[in-house]
């Protein structure tokens, strides 16, 4: 038998005007297990709170019911009162007789009757409530940042700046990401390397950042505050602890591979650093192109290395990291444009994609900054084709957001470097951003030919002598309404930014949801754009959706702040009203495991029952309703409690 106290609030006249409070109190007092029922003008006031606290002691109450305003208003207040009086806060029930009773009718009889029914429901339920205790867990103070592009670099630097340890995990041999490949940045045209390399260097120098290049995340376990991240260090065949970055090995290496950094437009050695400003400056050996690995002979690098840093026997190794938070900044891939055969990429050597052009502009690039084509000619006419794969229902319906601006940048640079004719073939010019519209205006003055229309095809089939030796871009000019054929020497495609090829795997590892394209889903598009459905995992940059550098850097800074809010505390309070599994009743159907958005339940295969990690549980109850045997108990909203409340509500 419980000892229930019921406190009915007048809320001045807010409640008392329509609900006959005394009648309700008398009704409550006569209910079984109700020891005392009282009324007060403002129960939330200090004397009201004292009344409750006093009664808890005086009548030895083990449950209290406060019939007043909405629980969303004062539940916390009354929970505190109970705790202070020695009663567990979860033994408090709030009955909403204001917002959902006295304020929504003028009929006294109706309001009084409803107030009684609501209190009756609360009495039925209160008997079955159980005390719950919030649990605190230790928080690991370190953060893992996945991805060493500008987003990851920025996040790592921000977190390190407050003295927290960061592990920056990068898959390639260097950090820098796509931004390192760019020559200039829009709209200011400042040199990408000039603004990026100091940051890369800062990462290297920062004692709080542990840089893990040529590494991949292999496994993520645990939960917010306590992640266990397993990192695979891919074999470099060079002992970076010994290497002094003299790069003599690179010079002597006879192996030849295509430079990934230069988008295959230049060669690199088998032992290499991706580009001169790479961080770290220490090389790795590419097995696929290394003469020794291919033919079993060579070992030139080993001979030349004074540090004895070359180690052909090196194997992949694993690093286990504990972290309190994780930031995913894994970036994007450029869409492969080959399948879009109408644009001739891969078929016509004079068709380039955006990143290739970036490398052509760059003074450290394959052409030392000269715009010359694969055949060595300098193009005299160039068409830049927007929206290749973007805004395209057959490929990616979204706008890739950056292409208009970098296409303008290309136009400017091409004009500057070749003085040729430059055409922009666009659907709409999207220039929303600080200084973007101005940049567009500037380009309009620069003798660039803007044609409003999406390029239909690129072909070498000529129709007149003027077109001879050129590529013809066919387009419906939507401004003139005419079909145009534009003969050019060079075609530049602006392909869609798409999720990384392995984004789904990464999402699975981090337990993130992805949108229909594969970009990571934020928790809320407006109010929690950097959080995810997995607590403690945040996202920044183009892994969430296409975005430019300023947006990426802003997000990265924000994600750092989000991660810090978690790791800056030593302990974390867990939701107390979580779900649990009554193992004896679990039939092992896995429904809970399948439906939980937080991956809180998991299958204990040995026992054949599911278990809930309460640190991950948010208490929504989705699993409990999916559980056919009612083995899952959603604390504070158990099947019994909900059905008891229903019974009480329906009695009168």
């Amino acid at each position, binding site marked *: 038998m419980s000892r229930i106290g019921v406190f009915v609030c007048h809320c001045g006249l807010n409640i008392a005007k329509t609900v006959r409070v005394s009648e309700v109190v008398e009704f409550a007092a*006569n*209910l*079984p*297990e*109700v020891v005392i029922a009282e009324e007060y003008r403002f129960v939330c006031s200090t004397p009201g709170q004292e009344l409750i606290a006093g009664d808890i002691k005086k009548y030895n109450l083990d449950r209290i019911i406060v019939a007043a305003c909405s629980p969303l208003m004062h539940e916390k207040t009354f929970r505190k009162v109970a705790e202070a009086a020695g009663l567990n806060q979860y033994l408090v029930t709030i009955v909403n007789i204001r917002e959902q009773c006295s304020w929504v009718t003028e009929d006294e009889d109706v309001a009084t009757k409803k107030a009684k029914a609501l209190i009756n429901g609360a009495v039925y339920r209160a008997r079955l409530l159980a005390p719950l205790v919030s649990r605190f867990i230790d928080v690991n103070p370190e953060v893992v940042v996945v991805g060493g592009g500008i987003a990851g670099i920025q996040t790592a630097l921000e977190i390190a700046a407050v003295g927290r340890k960061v592990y920056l995990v990068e898959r390639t041999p260097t950090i820098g990401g796509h931004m390192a490949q760019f020559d200039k940045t829009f709209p200011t045209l400042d040199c990408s390397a000039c603004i990026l390399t100091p940051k890369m260097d800062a990462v290297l120098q920062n004692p709080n950042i542990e840089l893990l290049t040529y590494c991949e995340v292999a496994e993520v376990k645990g939960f917010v505050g306590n992640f266990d991240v397993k990192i695979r260090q891919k074999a470099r065949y060079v002992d970076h602890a010994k290497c002094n970055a003299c790069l003599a090995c690179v010079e002597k290496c006879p192996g030849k591979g295509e430079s990934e950094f230069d988008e295959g437009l230049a060669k690199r050695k088998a032992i290499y650093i991706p580009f001169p400003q790479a961080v770290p400056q220490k090389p790795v050996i590419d097995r696929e192109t290394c003469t020794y690995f291919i033919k079993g002979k060579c070992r030139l690098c080993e001979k030349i290395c004074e540090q004895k840093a070359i180690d052909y026997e090196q194997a992949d190794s694993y690093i286990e990291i504990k972290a309190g938070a994780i930031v995913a900044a894994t970036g994007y891939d450029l869409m492969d444009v080959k399948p879009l055969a109408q644009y001739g990429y891969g078929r016509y050597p004079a068709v380039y994609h955006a990143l290739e052009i970036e490398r052509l502009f760059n003074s450290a690039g394959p052409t030392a900054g000269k715009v010359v084509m694969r055949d060595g000619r300098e193009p005299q006419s160039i068409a830049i084709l927007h929206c290749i794969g973007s805004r395209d229902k057959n490929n990616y319906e979204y706008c890739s957001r950056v292409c208009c601006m970098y296409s303008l940048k290309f136009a400017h640079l091409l004009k500057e470097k070749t003085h040729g004719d430059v055409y922009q073939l666009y659907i709409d010019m999207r220039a929303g951003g600080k200084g973007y519209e101005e940049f567009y205006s500037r380009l309009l003055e620069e003798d660039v030919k803007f044609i409003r229309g999406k390029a239909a095809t690129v072909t070498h089939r000529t129709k007149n002598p003027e077109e001879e030796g050129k590529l013809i871009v066919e387009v419906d000019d939507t401004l003139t309404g005419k079909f145009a054929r534009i003969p050019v020497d060079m075609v530049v495609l602006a392909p869609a930014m798409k999720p990384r090829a392995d984004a789904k795997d990464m999402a699975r590892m981090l337990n993130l949801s992805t949108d229909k394209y594969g970009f990571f889903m934020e928790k809320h598009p407006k109010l929690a754009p950097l959080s995810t459905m997995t607590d403690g995992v945040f996202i920044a940059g183009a892994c969430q959706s296409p975005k430019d550098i300023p947006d990426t850097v802003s997000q990265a800074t924000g994600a750092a702040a989000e991660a810090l809010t978690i790791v800056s505390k030593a302990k974390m309070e867990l939701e107390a009203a979580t779900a649990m599994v009554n193992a*004896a009743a679990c039939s092992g159907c896995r429904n809970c495991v399948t439906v939980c958005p937080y991956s809180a339940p998991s299958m204990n295969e040995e026992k054949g029952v599911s278990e809930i990690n309460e640190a991950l549980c948010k208490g929504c109850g989705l699993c409990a309703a999916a559980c056919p045997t009612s083995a899952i108990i959603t604390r504070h909203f158990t099947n019994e409690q909900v059905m008891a409340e229903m*019974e009480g509500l329906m*009695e009168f």
Partner: protein
Amino acid sequence: MLRKIEQGRFGELIEALLARGPLYAPVRDDRGVNFQLIRKASEPTLDFYNTLQSPKLAWFPQSEDLIRYRLAKGETKGEAISGPVAPTVVLGMRPWDVKSLAIMDLLFLGGGKEDPYWLEKRRLTTVIGYGLASEEEPDGADFFRTLNIGAADSDGSDVFLLKKDGDLLLEGITERGKGLLGELTFLKEGTEEDERYLVAAKAGGKDRKTRFFDLDANAAADKLKAVFADNTFWEKEAEGCISCGTCTFVCPTCHCFDIADETLFRDGVRRRFWDACMFTDFTLEASGHNPRPRTFQRLRQKICHKYSFYIEKFGVVSCVGCGRCTRLCPVNIDIFSLVARAVNL
């Protein structure tokens, strides 16, 4: 005392019985024949081999209210439900079903404690047994002859009913039965020829063929105890068993029940209702421990209870060979061949 009535006037007989009080009799619906509390004289039928379910429900209903209570403030008030039971007639029970009453009496009345609910109904109920006519073939699942029950035995009945050509013969067996027949003045006297017919039919009932093996109850009891620990045997026998309660619910001698309080809006009844030893949670203890967690253990329990433990305790087999469990088993488990295999192991 022998009376008779034309079969065509069966309705009149029912009418007269209905006038005296509650009557259970076989009624046919679209799914077969079962005992029901009769509302109209036209409902009962005598054209059936046997009912799908056993007639035990007249004495041991599937669900029976014991106490009514109200959870009130301060104290909970309860009152026993012991409404007066009216003298009742159960008409049309086959001899082997009638036999089950004596077997159930041993438990409900002879186990050292009398069950008042059973006793009250037994005291006030008149049983009209119904012999199997000579032209009717016993069902292939039946084996009452193995239990030494004749197809036209009248033991245990108050009145014994038998079809003869166009007539129904009614023999008063007990004083109560004779008293009842005496009240039914519209019945005709049976003739000497009827008398002879009846005697011959009862004797002939012993010669009727059902599935048979020579069952020595005490030897079977011992043998089953010896086989009890042979898990391989029981596991093999139980491999098809789905552990449902069909066999026990249709059995005329299964008597296990559960008791629960059913409360709604603070009003409740304490009720007893059939339970089945084949259910997983039948032996589930409050601690969570279950001494019979496996299907074979439960099937073994049921067989051994009927063919060993009951004999040990009361001296008789707790089975009448009615074949219902076999006929209705969803997976065709057959108690007759199972026991035969165990005994001959």
